C-alpha cells in the first residue's frame, strides 16, 4: 500500500513533468493556429464602434443562438447524471456521478485534440484527414458558403465562428459518450470506463459523424439525421448494448427459469429532476441544430420536439398502466425521453401532428423495449438501450416515413426526399435504413474490439465482492450519503 503510494507519486511526478514540458509547445502551437483563425474576428473588434453591418448582425444572432443552444445541450449532462444515479442503487451512486461528471471532461479534451478534425476535416468519404489536431486547421469562419476558405468545408454553411461550431459539436459528442455510462453502471471499473469514453470521443463518434454530418458517404447519399437520432443516440445505444453484453448482467438481476428481479433505483426524485433537465436541454439539441436563427424552422422544431416528448410521456404512462397495472413513474420518464430521442432526427421535417404520432409510438416502444431487453437478459439499469438505441433507430426511420416535401429542404441535402406517408415513396426510407445499418455495423465492430481489448488489459468488471459491497467504497473510497458517520459527529 505504502509502496504503491510512493510509486504513485513518482509516476505522477513523471506525468506532471511531461505535461509541463509539453505544455508551452502545445500552447505556442495552438496559439498560432487559432490566432490565424481568429484574425477576422479580432479585426472586427476595433471596427465595432463604427457599427456592425446587416451581415454582421446575422452572424451575431446566429452565434448567440448556437452558443445558447450548445449550453443547453451541455446542461443535459446534469440531466443524465441525475437520471442515471437516480435509477441506480445508493451503494453505486458516487461511482455513477463520477462517471457522468468526468465523461464530459474526457470528451472535451478528446474531441478537441482529434475528434473534431476527424469529423469535420476535409478528407475522404470515410474520415477527415486535414486540420486534424487541436482544431488547428485553416479556417476563416464565420465567412460561409463561397466566401469560406479553410479545411472544415462540410460545416461551412454555418455563419458562426469556428469555436462556436466546435462547441456545439462538442456537446453532442459528450452526449453520445454519456449514454453508455448508464447502461454499464453498477459493475464497470471506473478507469476502464474513462478510457472507453476517450476512445468514443476520439475515434468512434467522429468517424460516424464524418459520414453523416462531415460530408461523408452517407450524407452524399441523402441520409438525413437532423439532430442526431442516429449520430448521437443510436451510436451511444449500440456502444451501450455491446458493453452490456460483454460485461454481463449485475449479480442477482436474473434468477433461474427466466426470472427477472427488480433492482430499484435509489432516488426517483433525482431521476425526475434529471428527466426535466433533459427535456429542457433538448430545446437546445434539436432547434439548435439549425445552427442559424431561421425563425420559422426553430419555432416549429421547438414545438415538434415538445409535442413528441409530451406524447411519449402520455403513451408510455398509459401503456405501462394497462400492461403492468399501475402507472410506473420510471416508465413515464423513459417515455418522455423516448419521444425526444425519436423526434431528434425528423424534428425539422415533420408536422406537429406527425410529431405527436411519433411520440405516441416511441412511448409505447420504450415500454416494450424495457421488457424485451430484460427478457434477453441484457441488464441495462437505466433503460438506455430502449430509450436511445431503439428509439434512435425508430426516429431515424421516421424521416423516411413522415418527412413532408416542403420541409425536407431544411436538410439542405439535394438527395433527400419526402417520406413514405407524404408521397415520397420508399426511397428515403431505404436510405435511412442503410444509414442505420452502416452506423450500427461500424459501432458494433469498433466497440467490440475496444471493450475486449480493455477486458484483456485493465479488466472491465469489478470483483464480485466489490460489486456486492458497492462500487462507491471499492472504486472511490467515498459514500454518497454518509449518514451514519454524520449522525455521530
Amino acid at each position, binding site marked *: 500500500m505504502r509502496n504503491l503510494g510512493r510509486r504513485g507519486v513518482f509516476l505522477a511526478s513523471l506525468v506532471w513533468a511531461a505535461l509541463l514540458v509539453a505544455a508551452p509547445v502545445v500552447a505556442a502551437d495552438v496559439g498560432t493556429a487559432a490566432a490565424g483563425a481568429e484574425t477576422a474576428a479580432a479585426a472586427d473588434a476595433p471596427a465595432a464602434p463604427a457599427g456592425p453591418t446587416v451581415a454582421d448582425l446575422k452572424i451575431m444572432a446566429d452565434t448567440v443562438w448556437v452558443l445558447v443552444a450548445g449550453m443547453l445541450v451541455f446542461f443535459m449532462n446534469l440531466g443524465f447524471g441525475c437520471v442515471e444515479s437516480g435509477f441506480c442503487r445508493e451503494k453505486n451512486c458516487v461511482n455513477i456521478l463520477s462517471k457522468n461528471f468526468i465523461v464530459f471532461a474526457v470528451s472535451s479534451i478528446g474531441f478537441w485534440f482529434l475528434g473534431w478534425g476527424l469529423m469535420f476535416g476535409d478528407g475522404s468519404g470515410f474520415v477527415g484527414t486535414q486540420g486534424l489536431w487541436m482544431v488547428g486547421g485553416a479556417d476563416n469562419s464565420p465567412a460561409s458558403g463561397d466566401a469560406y476558405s479553410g479545411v472544415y468545408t462540410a460545416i461551412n454553411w454555418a455563419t458562426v465562428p469556428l469555436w462556436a461550431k466546435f462547441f456545439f459539436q462538442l456537446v453532442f459528442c459528450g452526449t453520445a459518450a454519456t449514454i453508455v455510462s448508464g447502461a454499464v453502471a453498477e459493475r464497470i471499473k471506473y478507469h476502464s470506463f474513462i478510457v472507453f469514453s476517450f476512445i468514443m470521443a476520439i475515434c468512434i463518434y467522429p468517424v460516424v459523424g464524418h459520414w453523416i454530418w462531415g460530408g461523408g458517404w452517407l450524407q452524399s447519399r441523402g441520409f438525413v439525421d437532423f439532430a442526431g437520432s442516429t449520430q448521437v443516440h443510436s451510436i451511444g445505444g449500440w456502444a451501450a448494448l455491446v458493453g452490456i453484453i460483454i460485461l454481463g448482467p449485475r449479480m442477482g438481476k436474473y434468477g433461474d427459469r427466466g426470472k*427477472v*428481479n*427488480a433492482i430499484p*433505483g435509489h432516488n426517483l426524485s433525482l431521476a425526475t429532476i434529471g428527466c426535466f433537465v433533459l427535456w429542457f436541454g433538448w430545446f437546445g439539441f434539436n432547434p439548435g441544430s439549425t445552427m442559424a436563427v431561421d425563425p420559422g424552422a426553430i419555432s416549429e422544431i421547438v414545438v415538434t420536439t415538445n409535442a413528441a416528448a409530451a406524447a411519449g410521456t402520455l403513451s408510455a404512462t398509459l401503456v405501462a398502466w394497462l400492461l403492468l*397495472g399501475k402507472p*410506473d413513474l*420510471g*416508465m413515464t420518464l423513459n417515455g418522455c425521453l423516448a419521444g425526444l430521442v425519436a423526434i431528434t432526427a425528423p424534428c425539422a421535417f415533420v408536422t406537429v401532428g406527425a410529431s405527436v404520432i411519433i411520440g405516441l409510438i416511441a412511448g409505447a416502444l420504450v415500454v416494450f423495449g424495457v421488457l424485451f431487453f*430484460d427478457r434477453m437478459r441484457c441488464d441495462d439499469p437505466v*433503460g438506455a438501450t430502449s430509450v436511445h438505441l431503439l428509439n434512435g433507430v425508430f426516429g431515424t426511420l421516421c424521416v423516411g416515413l413522415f418527412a413532408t416535401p416542403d420541409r425536407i429542404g431544411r436538410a439542405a441535402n439535394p438527395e433527400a426526399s419526402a417520406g413514405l406517408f407524404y408521397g415520397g415513396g420508399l426511397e428515403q426510407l431505404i436510405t435511412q435504413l442503410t444509414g442505420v445499418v452502416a452506423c450500427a455495423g461500424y459501432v458494433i465492430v469498433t466497440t467490440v474490439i475496444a471493450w475486449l481489448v480493455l477486458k484483456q488489459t485493465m479488466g472491465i468488471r469489478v470483483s464480485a465482492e466489490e460489486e456486492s459491497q458497492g462500487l462507491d467504497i471499492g472504486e472511490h473510497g467515498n459514500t454518497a450519503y454518509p449518514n451514519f458517520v454524520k449522525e455521530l459527529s
Partner: protein
Amino acid sequence: MKKVEALIRHFKLEDVKEALSSRGVRGMTVTEVRGFGRQKGHTEKYRGAEYTVDFVPKIKIEVVVSDGDLAGALEAITTAARTGQVGDGKIFVSDLSAVVRIRTGETGDSAI
C-alpha cells in the same frame, strides 16, 4: 425489573406513548423496524419487474418497568395499540437482572 418490548403500528406510537405516560412511565426507547407476520406486505413494480416487500414497517417500543408496574404497562399498550386488524403487533416481556442510570450510577428500580 421487566423489559417490555412491543411491536406496534407507526401511527399508534403517539397513543401508546400517552397511555404509558399517563400510568407514570417516564422513559422508553423507540426503534424503526420491519416486521414479517400474518399481515401481508405489498407488491411494488419497478420498470416492469415486480417485487414483493414482505417486511412491513413497524415501531418497536422498549420500556423497562419495575415488576409492580408490569401489568399496568401491558394493559396500557394493549389497549392503546389495538385496532383489531391483523398486524397490530406483539408484546414480549423478559426479566432484567440489573439496571443502571449512567448519569448518577444509580441501580435497580430507582434507575428506571
